[in-house]
């Protein structure tokens, strides 16, 4: 936006009229631009950054990134920088730990910019997007087998307080590979951009140690905004991470996996700003534009035709009060291409990863599986597992009321199947399974059941499998 940059000398204003929450209100500020970055110098001469949220008449509303504590109306000076917020980026960011403004937190030297990019980015032209269809093998059966992830997809993990979502994310970051057409994993792993948004020191330590231990650290850029850092910076940490990811993916042809945690903290920061501006609140006090704002982040995932790189997003969010209809998970689910939902119930049973496959979904799955990508039997096997497990769960509810005595033999088999499915298929622990191992395990579990229960699998595929029980037709009768 070079053309909108004013050539005049940068003016300084001392016309603050009000300070409210994270916002300052400025009078007699002609010629300021919407979303312009400002420098605020407090009475002690210390500088902090802010951004224009609204301009009207001759006054402006400015959001101060690191908070307004210590500012006053008389002596605080504001200078407009003539540009929107930018981030300095460079391939040398890999292996570094930075804050939301791109300043080093690891004691290293500042990033020497190769480019300086608008942190808001621009929307990818839908006409040049390539449809995500390359299977990513995460090594986790509940994902690879039933909710397959593809390169360029955005998939959130809906977790609950106290569940091991971070462990799962770190495991995926370490294990994720793209399978070549022959089914062998490509040697080239993902570059990881990790945005820690308002998480605790303990969680930050967990991730840095996990990245070190798995050897992921040197191909990772970490952006950190801790729980005790200014909440407004959470809005920028997410954007800085995505701007870096776009740069690595679309300028340097890398396959980037972006992990953002925890989006609930991000949304709360957004609500804080909206409340300070006295905006008309939407559901649960979140602003009416929460959907658009989240979309401006999530939609930065994808692939572009003719470019090698890609951005895959894995977003963690904690469902407040275990409620999936809360606006944060709800709006997220409407934007992302599916969701992985964790379950407290499975966690209590000691199942890791505690993925509840029934409400989980990957919308790109159909494009990423099948002959030539995973295996021809992948889709029908997944459909069958879902149908059988769903039936098993219904039966469990039933026996809780009427007792096990009322069940038929077929019902009992399905119950056993559901138990083994949870324990063996989902509850794989820290192992890393290939897609073949995942699908073979599925067949092994289905072999417990009489063959005509498997209605979602085409006849010819059933015939191809050597059935464990030759007399299954007799049993069904």
């Amino acid at each position: 936006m070079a053309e909108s940059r004013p050539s005049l000398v940068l003016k300084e204003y001392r016309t603050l009229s009000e300070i409210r929450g994270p916002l300052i209100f400025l009078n007699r500020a002609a010629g300021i631009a919407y979303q312009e970055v400002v420098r605020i110098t407090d009475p002690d001469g210390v500088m902090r950054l802010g951004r224009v949220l609204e301009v009207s008449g001759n006054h402006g509303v400015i959001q101060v990134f690191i908070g307004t504590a210590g500012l006053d109306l008389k002596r605080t000076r504001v200078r407009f920088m003539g540009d929107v917020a930018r981030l300095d980026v460079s391939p040398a960011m890999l292996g570094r730990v930075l804050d939301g403004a791109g300043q080093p937190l690891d004691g290293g030297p500042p990033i020497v910019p190769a480019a300086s990019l608008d942190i808001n980015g621009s929307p990818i032209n839908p006409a040049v997007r390539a449809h995500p269809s390359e299977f990513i093998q995460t090594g986790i059966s509940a994902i690879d087998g039933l909710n397959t992830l593809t390169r360029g997809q955005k998939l959130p993990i809906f977790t609950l307080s106290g569940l091991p979502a971070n462990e799962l994310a770190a495991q995926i970051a370490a294990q994720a590979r793209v399978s070549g057409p022959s089914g062998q994993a490509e040697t080239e792993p993902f570059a990881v951009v990790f945005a820690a948004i308002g998480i605790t020191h303990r969680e930050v330590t967990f991730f840095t140690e996990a990245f070190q231990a798995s050897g992921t650290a040197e191909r990772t850029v970490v952006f950190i905004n801790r729980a005790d850092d200014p909440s407004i910076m959470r809005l920028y940490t997410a954007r800085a991470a995505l701007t870096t990811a776009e740069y690595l993916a679309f300028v340097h042809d890398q396959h980037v996996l972006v992990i953002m945690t925890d989006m609930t903290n991000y949304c709360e920061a957004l609500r804080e700003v909206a409340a300070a501006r006295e905006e008309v609140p939407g559901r649960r006090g979140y602003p009416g534009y929460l959907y658009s704002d989240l979309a401006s982040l999530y939609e930065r995932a994808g692939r572009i035709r003719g470019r090698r790189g890609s951005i895959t997003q894995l977003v963690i969010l904690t469902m407040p009060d275990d409620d999936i209809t809360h606006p944060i998970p709800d709006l997220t689910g409407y934007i992302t291409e599916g969701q992985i939902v964790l379950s407290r119930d499975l966690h209590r049973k000691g199942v890791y990863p505690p993925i509840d496959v029934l409400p989980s979904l990957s919308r790109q799955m159909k494009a990423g599986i099948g002959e030539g990508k995973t295996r021809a039997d992948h889709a029908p096997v997944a459909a069958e597992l879902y149908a059988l497990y769903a039936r098993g769960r219904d039966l469990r509810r039933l026996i809780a009321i009427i007792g096990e005595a009322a069940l038929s033999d077929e019902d009992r088999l399905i119950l056993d199947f559901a138990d083994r499915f949870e324990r063996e298929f989902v509850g794989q622990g820290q192992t890393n399974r290939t897609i073949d191992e995942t699908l073979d395990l599925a067949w092994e579990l289905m072999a417990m059941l009489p063959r005509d229960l498997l209605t979602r699998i085409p006849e010819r595929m059933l015939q191809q499998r050597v059935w464990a029980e030759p007399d299954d037709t007799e049993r069904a009768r």
Partner: protein
Amino acid sequence: MSNKGRIIRVAGPVVGAVGLSFPRLYDVVRVGHLGLIGEVIRLAGDRTTIQVYEETAGLRLGEPVISTGQPLVVQLGPGLLGQIYDGLQRPLTRLSEISGQFIERGVDAFPLATDVPWPFAPRVQVGDAVGPGDVLGVVPETPVIEHRVMVPVGVRGRVSAIADGPLTVRDVAAVIDVGCGQLREIRLVQTWPVRQPRPVQAKLDADEPLITGTRVIDAFFPVAKGGAAIIPGGFGTGKTVVEQSLARWSDVDVVIYVGCGERGNEIADVLEEFPRSIDPYTGEPLMNRTVLIANTSNMPVAAREASIYTGITIAEYYRDMGYDVLLLADSTSRWGEALREISGRLEEIPGEEGYPAYLAARLSEFYERAGRVRCLGTGRDASGGNPVPRIGSLTLVGAVSPPGGDFSEPITQGSMRVAGAFWALSYDLSRRRHFPAISWTQSYSLYPLKRWYSRHVARDWSDLVGEAIALLQRADELEEIVQLVGPEALSDNEHLLLMIAQMIREGFLHQSAFEGEDRYCPLEKTYWMLKAFITFYHRGRRMLDAGQGLDAVRALPARAALARLKEEPAENAATSIKALVDQLVEGDA
């Protein structure tokens, strides 16, 4: 006086300006040095409030605002089909050639290719009297659609010149003497303001179903051609998949697909799939009958609002040529939310859940643009001589994304009041991967289509459908009883009913949108499948009456055959399933 003003306020997509001389409501203005496209949405004294269709970051107080004096219009002419536009009808493929993979601001391009010569074949002669809607000539826009160049609304007179041969969209196709020595030049491309419905001679009753190839819709809850249907459902319940199936398999001539505030990757999917997919009715690639409007969720919010109107105006244009048109809007909730966001920025007093009080009115206006109509102008019969009325239809299907899947919210409720078919998607079904997850208990269709079905498919169509729906509802009630007191409380007849209901759910209602034979089910196959399930049920009832137990029914070989009817090839479905039905009937003998 000038048509130039200056910016005095910027808040998100809403910009305030002063100094415009005669701004009219809904005039298009160019905002700032970048010339961002905006629309006047409120006037108060000297102050003009504008919603800007592009990102406003960087706009400065005092920057100029220039009025074009024109409302937001779409360009209508040959070359629309197969294109992908944003909400303001900017051609996205052209934009990517101009500004690269990311959409930059202030970039514009003409929506239609201006250098393509279209072979124009006249349908009138010099001296003919013509009026609005009359066809001046045709061009073969795609192998399946003949583009009819019509006399614009408000023009009546005698043809004083007519072209013949190749024309680009900006060339004059005809000159019409409108009297008093005035001549009007008619080009291949015409414009129409998006917020104004295109006029028709008369609205007609909608009495023919839109055949979709999706069994649960065609059999249980059909929408009429010219009707309106809504698909509400929480996230992950399959709205987009249903909409895409409709776009693929519906028996219409033209499909307008509006991706309003949805996912970019889904648009990419459509863009990759549709040129490759074959329309079962014409054997041509689907893209030849499709226009895509893509305003993804990260594109500016105000343009999301415009995208719905851009789409429906293009749809009406093809309807006016006498075609059956289907407009798919995914999702109308994003449009409603855009209204809410703009309304909030205007500091209007909110109605329910923060939506503006005029939400319901806007929804009704939109859905009422659907209809089966007698178009303006007259067509000619095959011999080219006698005038016959031209009939077109515009069917509207809107997806709704209610927060938390709760249908009591304002957009679902507002849409339900005006749409005649309601396809409720159920979380419960989608979680067990029963797709399409259209609930058979909550959905309904108000269109009187029984007569059409009994005349064109089979006499007993309505009876079969009625019996199947009643059976499924009864099964749901019985299942509740089982949940409370256990299965022993049921009689054999009730057990049979539960078994049949499950067979119908899995063998008939469940349908894969993606794979193989089953993704498109012709009406004849739908009928024979349904007939087979109901016949099996009757057979089972007779066996129970005759004292044979439930196990005997379960052991009928037809049971397994029914579960696999879906895989039966459509060409010989009628004969093979009919044989099964006959066998079931004869089984008693």
